[in-house]
């Protein structure tokens, strides 16, 4: 059996529901993740799908400890990081990186592309930073001269490639990609997916890819986790999920995708 990069056991996350907060006392809590257990083997590309409010982004954020779970354990390469303090987490931070949904708001508009990619590298104490920035730009297929440009001078697809370059420059073990193509046109979306596919193949990346779009997930992911209202309703290998979806919700989701085909009839 292959080695696990992540092992999750009964993960629970809740948020305070401020809209129902009484005048005095604490707000009631809404459970967003209701006890999730699953593993991510090394080198796997895991797709996380679900409707809005299903908890997919919350799960992603818990994986890289941007939020602390209420209960349960998150083992990252054997170490439970679920309740680690910020200080204990800092040496691990380089090893799990994130690519954000909106490349415009996740890139500092006042810094050049080169500076944006170099920032985390110098914080983590890397040497040969200029060479590493060039290498990262090469890997995402952007010309090296782009290091001197500002984010607003790039197209949406190019900006998202900068986001990917920033994440992979740190040579992480795990990358979380949260809806990174949903704001893009189909043609730039296809480019980004091709870049990710190549990186996964060449660098042996482990990737969690959050999306609401099963067509995109099918292209990229080896395994798919379907979330519905904070629970895992299906966890299956990609070909299996598409040929024989077990959960009723998965079938609803598949059925709702508008195929570019006028012969598909909606019930």
């Amino acid at each position, binding site marked *: 059996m292959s080695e696990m990069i992540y092992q999750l056991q009964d993960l629970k996350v809740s948020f305070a529901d401020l809209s129902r907060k009484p005048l005095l006392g604490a707000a009631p809590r809404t459970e967003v993740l209701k006890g999730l257990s699953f593993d991510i083997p090394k080198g796997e590309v895991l797709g996380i799908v679900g*409707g809005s409010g299903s908890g997919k982004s919350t799960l992603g954020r818990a994986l890289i400890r941007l939020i602390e779970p209420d209960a349960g354990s998150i083992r990252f390469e054997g170490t439970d990081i679920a309740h680690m303090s910020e200080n204990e987490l800092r040496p691990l931070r380089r090893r799990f990186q994130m690519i954000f949904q909106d490349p415009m708001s996740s890139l500092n508009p006042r810094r050049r592309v080169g500076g944006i990619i170099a920032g985390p590298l110098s914080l983590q104490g890397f040497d040969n930073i200029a060479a590493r920035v060039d290498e990262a730009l090469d890997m995402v297929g952007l010309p090296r001269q782009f290091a001197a440009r500002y984010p607003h001078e790039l197209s949406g697809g190019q900006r998202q490639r900068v986001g990917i370059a920033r994440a992979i420059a740190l040579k992480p073990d795990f990358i979380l990609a949260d809806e990174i193509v949903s704001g893009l*046109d*189909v043609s*730039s*979306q*296809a480019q980004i997916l091709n870049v990710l596919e190549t990186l996964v193949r060449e660098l042996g990346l482990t990737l969690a890819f959050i999306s609401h779009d099963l067509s995109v997930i099918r292209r990229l992911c080896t395994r798919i986790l379907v979330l519905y209202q904070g629970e895992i309703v299906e966890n299956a290998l990609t070909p299996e999920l598409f040929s024989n979806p077990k959960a009723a919700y998965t079938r609803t989701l598949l059925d709702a*995708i*508008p195929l*570019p085909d006028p012969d598909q009839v909606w019930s």
Partner: protein
Amino acid sequence: MNYLSIRDLTVRLSNGLPLLRKVSLDVEAGEVRALVGESGAGKSMIGKAVLGILPRAARLTGGAILLDGENLETLSPKERRQRIGAKVALIPQDPLTALNPSRRVGPQITDRLVDILDWKRDEAEARALELLNEVHIQSPDRVMKSYPHELSGGMRQRILIASAFAAEPKLIIADEPTTALDVTVQKQILKLIREMQERHQTALLFVTHDLGVVSKISQSLTVLYAGKVIEETSVRSFFAGPKHPYSRALLAATPKYTDPDGSLMPVPDSVISAVEREVAAFDEQLNG
């Protein structure tokens, strides 16, 4: 008969840069036409030009917009507003920003009927209730009294659909009405728009970037690139094989989960430069 007929419409920025390049397009009475293109192609700009709400920096510099046979450009601003108010409605993209967050839903539906079309308030309210029923909203009385933030995205989009159909317009412009929604909700909303459109026999100009959505909603489509019409055809023949290389590339870039290997080819640079050359050649003619 064409209910909306756009002839050689050219819109330019104040510095002369063209946003729409001699766009011609027709929507027949009761027909659904999709308007497809990538971001920046000018698809929303066409809807804005028809409604007379172009951004301040953009100016209509040529062509004509005929609504029900009448050239809108020859009307006074007041007449134009009245024609548009009575005959055209918009279903906007984002159901949250399109509704005023500090007002209840009911008056936001009836405003147009009362203020522009001079209905009596109780008639307008009865009509709003009837329409909320039509868009399958449970307990419409309660929803009329709700604020937008108390409703889900799908509910809000249903309300905007009800509001668009309220005055029985002959033409509805839908500007990416499902982009902000989940796939399962998108399916319900698309089916609802189709159902309402068929029942009321409204002409529909449906702006979208999603070819999957096009195949579910419309009978004909117009493909735009850089404000220029690239292809105009029926949905059947488009999906059987688009004629223009750019349309073909766009279709190949559209993900299709039933065909994981055959889909998602990025639009090749050669196609982009060919279509750019085509637009540049057209510009010489346009400016010359």
